[in-house]
Every structure is written in C-alpha cells, then in structure tokens.
C-alpha cells in the first residue's frame, strides 16, 4: 500500500484516491474489525435470544418455536432464584471489597521505593496468571484435608477445622476471596492511574493550606478519584457478574447450589445437561443488569470528560 504514496506524486495531487479520501479510508480501516465483531458477537447474541424462544437441545434435530415457555421454565427452576441471588451477592460484595482494598493499596503505592518492581510483580501476579490455574491453587489451599490455611489457623491456636468448600456460607466466602484476589490488581492499576492524574499543585496547595494527613486524604484525594473508583467498581461488577471460572473450578456451584451463579447455571444446563435453550435463556437474564450498568458507565464517562 505504500506504493500508493509514491504513485500519488507521479499522478499529481489533483486526483482523489481512496487513500486520500478520509471518509472512505476511515470506513475501510474500521470495517474489518466491525464485521468480525458483529459476526462473532452480534450473530451469536441474536441466536441466543432466538434459542430462548425455542426448545432446542443437543439431541433435537430441529428447534421449534415455543414462545416464552423456555424462559418460564428457566425462571421456575428453583436453582434459578438461588443463582440470581448468589450472582448479586458474589458481584456486589467482591467488588465493594476490591475497590476499598485497591484504594488503600494504590494510595500506599504512589511513591517510589526500593524493590517496587518486585512488589508490583507480586501484586500483579493474581491477575496475569490464568484464572483457572490460580483457582486450582486456591482449591489446593482450601482442601478439606490438607488445607494450608487450616493448618496455619490450627498452628495459631484456632480450634476449628473449617471445610471451606463443603459448607454453603464458607464456600461463598471462599469464592468471594478468590475473586477479590484475582481482580484486586486490575482495580489497583486503574486507581493508581487515577491518583497520578491529580495535579501535584493540588497536593501542594492542600499542604500549604494546612491540611493534615486525614483531611488531605478524605477531603482532597479521595473525592478527586471518586469517578475513577466508580469506573473500577462498574468494570469489576460486570466482570464478576458474568464470571463462572472461579466457581467452576472451586465448587462446581455446590454445595447444594449455594455458590451457583447465573453464568455457571447456564453452563451446566446448556453444556453438561444438553438443554441448549434452557442454558441460553438462563444466561439472557444477565442482560438487563448489564444494560443498566452500561448506561451508568456511559453517563459516568460523559461526566468525567466534561470536567
């Protein structure tokens, strides 16, 4: 394509070629990505909606339209309500913790210090490592017989031996812990970016005005990164709301569906159970919440751009 540049000069600059026409060039350069994404996201998306209105399954030869029956069946499944509640619980608690902890960590990491490279590597590890592998490590750490966590608790004098993945409340705590462990690095990175975008002048002015450590932190620094905290929160919420890997590896949704979320329920129904329509329908119930979050994020983005 670089030959076009030279050909231009030979032709004389009076001719308008595709490579000069900004509108067409822009569309041409954008088109492949748009087409690809539409094909691989848009089409399956519509297909998922379509399946929701049918009774297609792995064994069926053809699908027939059944109206809202599949959706109704999905909702009436007792596991559905539990999964819905669990999904919100899982996403809200884990991300609230993440944003809180990330704010603390990011504030502490602002200054340079010796060994920062290593600290940064260790803090990033949970996010860079493939999720399934990190989760397996936690599976081993939560093991009912050999759990190193329990051994350490016992060593410190604690008398119980919690079966982390075998009891409903504990299992939920366990998966929330792993989700926090794995998404904390990303939130920290986002917040660090936000903190560094506060002009140094503002910090200097606050020092001169006489703000002590806490006033400076709570009245100047934190309010200024509030928009970014919200961004991190929404990002993380969407992530956690639709995620199933941690649950698949650690508990498979058990015990007794206490850690089942909509995403994992959809998976087990559709792939393991072969009920494709039911799985698709279950997963579609994620959408209203996601749409609401998307609207929130757009509004937030518009506001931060205006300032």
């Amino acid at each position: 394509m670089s030959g076009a540049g030279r050909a231009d000069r030979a032709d004389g600059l009076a001719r308008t070629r595709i490579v000069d026409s900004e509108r067409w060039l822009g569309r041409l350069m954008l088109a492949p990505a748009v087409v690809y994404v539409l094909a691989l996201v848009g089409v399956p998306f519509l297909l998922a909606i379509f399946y929701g209105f049918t009774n297609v399954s792995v064994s069926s030869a053809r699908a027939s339209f059944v109206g809202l029956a599949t959706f109704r069946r999905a909702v009436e499944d007792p596991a559905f309500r539990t999964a819905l509640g669990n999904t919100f619980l899982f996403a809200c608690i884990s991300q609230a913790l993440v944003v809180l902890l990330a704010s603390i960590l990011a504030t502490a990491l602002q200054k340079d210090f010796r060994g920062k490279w290593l600290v940064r590597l260790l803090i990033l590890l949970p996010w860079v490592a493939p999720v399934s592998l990190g989760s397996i490590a936690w599976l081993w750490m939560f093991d009912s017989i050999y759990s190193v966590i329990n051994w350490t608790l016992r060593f410190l004098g604690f008398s119980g031996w919690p079966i982390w993945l075998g009891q409903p409340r504990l299992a939920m705590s366990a998966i929330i812990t792993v989700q926090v462990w794995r998404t904390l690095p990303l939130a920290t990175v986002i917040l660090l970016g936000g903190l560094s975008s506060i002009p140094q002048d503002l910090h200097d002015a606050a020092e001169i005005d006489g703000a002590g450590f806490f006033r400076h932190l709570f009245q100047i620094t934190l309010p200024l990164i509030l928009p970014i905290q919200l961004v991190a929160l929404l990002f993380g919420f969407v992530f956690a709301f639709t995620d199933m890997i941690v649950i698949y590896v650690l508990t498979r949704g058990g015990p007794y569906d206490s850690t089942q979320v909509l995403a994992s329920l959809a998976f087990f129904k559709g792939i393991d159970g072969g009920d494709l329509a039911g799985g698709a329908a279950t997963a579609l119930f994620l959408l209203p919440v996601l749409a609401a979050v998307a609207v929130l994020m757009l509004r937030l983005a518009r506001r931060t751009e205006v300032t």
Partner: protein
Amino acid sequence: MATVETRAIRKEFGDHTAVDCVDLQIREGEFLVLLGPSGCGKTTLLRMIAGLEKQTSGDVVIGGRVVNDLPPRARRIAMVFQSYALYPHLTVEQNIAFPLKAQGADPRTIPASVRQAATTVGIEQLLHRKPRQLSGGERQRVALARAMVRSPDVFLLDEPLSNLDAKLRTLARDELQQFQRRLGTTTIYVTHDQVEAMGLGDRIAVMSAGKVRQLGKPQEVYDDPADTFVAGFLGSPPMNFVERGDGLLGFRPEHLLPKGSYPTTEPLVDLWFRVDRIEHLGADRLLYGALRDIAKDQKVIVSLPSTVHMPAEPGQAYELSIKRRDLRLFDKQTGRRAAAQAEPGPL
C-alpha cells in the same frame, strides 16, 4: 506580616545545582520579585521558602524564626500557584474556607471571613460556582482570596499572571499591586516577565543559573546593571553590547538620539550609525544596524520614540548622540560591570 530571609540556601538535584547559595533579606511589607529565565532556580527557591522542597543546605528564616523543620502549614504563609490549584470538586466558597477549616478556625467565624476575602477581590457573587465554571481571571482572584483569608505573614506567588490573556494581564497587574499595598503583607513574586517585575516590585532579585545576580530597586537594576546578564535581561529591546578594546561597551537602544536633539548640557558622545532595517512599532521605531566607525560587524539596535522626527532610510548612516554617563563598561571575560566609568576619548 514578617521578614523573610534565606541564608546560604542551596538545592541540589543529583549533580545539578538548582539554587546555588542564595542570601536574601526581604523586609516587612516588601514586594520582592524573583526574576529570571526558566531554569534559573526562582521557583525552586520559592518552594523552599514555602517548605514544599527541602533545601540541601542553608536556612529559611521567617519572622526571625528558623523554619527549616516546619511543614508548610506551620510557616504562616500562603501561596498562589501558576495553575491556581483550585480544588475542582469544591465550590468557590468551600475553596476559600478550606484553609480556615484545616487550621481549626471557629466554624462560626468562617462564613464571614470568606465573604470578606471574596469581597476584597470582587468575587462575592461567584461563591456558589465551581472552578470549572469560572474564567481565568476569576479563578486567579479565587486563588488570591484563598491566600489572604488566613491573614498569613507572607504571600508567595508563582507566576500568577502568566495564564491570563495579554490584555487582561496589565489590568490584573494593577489590581494585584493595589491588593498588596492594601494588605501590606510581605510578598515574594516569581516571574520571567521583566515588565511585570519592573512594574510590581519594590525590589527585584535577578537570578540566573541558581544565583542572584543583582538585587535592587527596579530603576537601579535597570540603570546600573551588575553584569551583562542583568543588563541584557532587562529592557526590551535589550542593551547593546559592543567590543571596545578588551572590554564590552554597553548602551541602551533608547539612549541614542539624533545629534543635536538632545535637550541637555551634559557631556555627549557622538556616534555614526548605519541603518539596515527599520521596524515601525507605533509608539517607537526600532532601527536595526551597526555603528559605522567602531565594531562595524556587531549588531546594534536604536529605539527612537515616535516624537522624534528623524527621517531614516535603510542603507544610510546618521549621526547620533548618547550621554556619556549612559555608557556602561563591562569586563569581557566575566561579564561583570567594570568599576570605572567609560573614559572620554575617541571610541
């Protein structure tokens, strides 16, 4: 109100010396300007006085107290930043109130103090707005109000006018000076603009490469520069320098007038000046050229006010006069002002 002193103050960043052993004594109520090009250390010096930078060695003394170990908030100073540093998430009122709250003032007195400060700078109708809704000039006034509300002993101003439009700047300069005269607070002002410095300062400290080259009243620094740097930095167009023997002869463009039109009986020196190019600037004419008989290849600028009607053409030479006592002699090696006056005799 307090005196400010720096004693042998130094700041090094690695192997770069930003401020090199500066001694300053600033009087109570004085408006002192730190003037110099970017990188000369003036802002670093200001920040050390504020306590935002820790000096490598030397002392900062405010009101007779050595404040080296005191954080900024304990030094009873206020600062106006080039960017104004207004808290974007607070209203104008909250911005101005912030220092009072931070220092634990009685909450009942705060609204009145804020209102008084706002009225002094003329922004009392903007109290409920946020900084992003204000113009540059308005933001600058908010910054001033925030600075004065605590009645500090010293104001520190870091190029507060440089973000304003040129037209606004002259007006703002006037208001700023009236403001300081009214409050009578000791003020240290940093700028690279020599017009601002001359207009505002009671005294000017001209700085270059971390050192103070000269400290004095504006007219002193202008008329009796201590070295070629000061002579060249002040005045627009800058002083002309011409080699003469093993020294440098300096004279200002505006001190040359057509021979015969100088209304004085003081001793004059006559010089032939060849014009190469003329700029008509409205109030003045700038003649670019060179002296015809001495230092023929060195560029000289002459500035004639529009009230002097000397016809000038490029390529022609004209005879001009300058008062002998307006000639300055500088050492060619060091740039420092030679003690002796320019001697009479052929040039």
